[in-house]
C-alpha cells in the first residue's frame, strides 16, 4: 500500500514546501527547525550568555513543532514502515562494503549508528562530532535546510542562497574527501 512504501520526490517535495504557507497562515511563523536548539539552550543552560537571554517562551511553538516531528517519526516508523530493504545506488553499496557496511535493513545503518558504535572512535566522531558540527554550524549560519534552503529560498532571500550553497559544498567535501578516512577507522 502507498502508505507503507517510500514516497517519490514529487509527492514529498511539494508537501514539505506546503509547510511554509501552513506555518505562516497558522500564526505568522517562519519555518525553521534549528532555532529550537537555541531555545533549548535558552531554556536550560542560558549561563548569562547574551545570545541565550531572551524570552524563549515566546518561541514555544517552535519547540512544540520539534516535539511533533519526533512523534511523527515514531508514528511513521511504527505504523507506516516499509519492511523491504533500502535500495541504494550500487556504487555506494560497493564503496560501503569496503568499510564493512552491509546492513540495508534500516534507513539508519545500525553498523554506524548504535549505542555500541558510540564507544568506537568512528561512532563517536560520526554521532557526537557530527551533531556538534550540525548545532554549531546551523546557528552560525543562522538556519538549517528548513530555515535557509526551504523557507529562505522560497521567500527569495539571497543570504539563504549563499548559505545553501555552503551547506552543499560542506557536504560534498565531507562525503567525498573526509568521510572515507573516518569510515575506515
Amino acid at each position: 500500500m502507498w502508505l507503507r512504501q517510500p514516497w517519490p520526490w514529487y509527492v514529498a517535495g511539494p508537501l514539505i514546501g506546503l509547510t511554509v504557507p501552513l506555518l505562516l497562515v497558522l500564526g505568522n511563523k517562519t519555518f525553521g527547525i534549528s532555532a529550537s536548539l537555541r531555545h533549548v539552550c535558552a531554556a536550560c543552560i542560558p549561563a548569562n550568555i547574551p545570545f541565550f537571554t531572551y524570552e524563549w517562551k515566546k518561541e514555544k511553538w517552535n519547540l512544540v513543532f520539534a516535539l511533533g516531528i519526533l512523534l511523527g517519526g515514531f508514528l511513521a516508523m511504527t505504523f507506516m514502515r516499509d519492511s523491504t530493504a533500502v535500495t541504494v545506488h550500487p556504487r555506494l553499496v560497493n564503496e560501503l562494503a569496503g568499510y564493512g557496511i552491509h546492513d540495508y535493513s534500516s534507513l539508519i545503518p545500525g553498523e554506524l549508528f548504535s549505542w555500541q558504535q558510540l564507544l568506537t572512535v568512528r561512532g563517536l566522531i560520526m554521532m557526537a562530532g557530527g551533531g556538534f558540527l550540525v548545532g554549531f554550524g546551523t546557528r552560525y549560519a543562522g538556519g538549517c535546510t528548513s530555515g535557509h534552503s526551504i523557507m529562505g529560498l522560497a521567500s527569495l532571500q539571497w543570504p539563504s542562497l549563499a548559505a545553501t550553497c555552503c551547506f552543499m559544498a560542506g557536504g560534498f567535501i565531507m562525503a567525498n574527501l573526509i568521510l572515507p578516512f573516518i569510515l575506515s577507522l
Partner: protein
Amino acid sequence: MLKYLLAGIAFGIILVKAELISWFRIQEMFRLQSFHLYGIIGSAVVTGMIAVMLIKKFGIKTIRGEVIHIPDKKFHKGNIYGGLIFGLGWALTGACPGPLLAQAGGGATVIVITLLSAVAGTWVYGKLRERLPH
C-alpha cells in the same frame, strides 16, 4: 499550540516517508548518485515560492486575521562559515536537525546523543559568538 504539534507530526511523517532521514540517501546526494533529494528540495522550494507569492499577491491573512510578515534575513559571513560547518556535519550524521528529531523518535535512540551534541554545538556558538567573524 496543538496546531503546531499536529503540523510537526505531519512533517515528521513526511520526513520518514520521503526517506529524508536516511543516511544512505544523503550519501547518494553528495556523490551525485541519486536525484531523489535534489527533486525533493527543488520541488519544496518551488512550492513554497508559489505559496509565498500567492500570499503576497492576494494579501492572505493568518487564521486570526493578522497580516502575514516574513522577516528579511541579513547577509553575514556566518552564512558562509557556518554553512560550510553545517554541511560537514550534515554529511557525517546523514541528517539535518529535522530528520535528527524524526530518527530519534523513530526508534534510533542513540540519535539522542547526536541531538544533545547539536545542543552543545549551538551553546558553544552562543558562547563564542562575539569572537567569531560575522
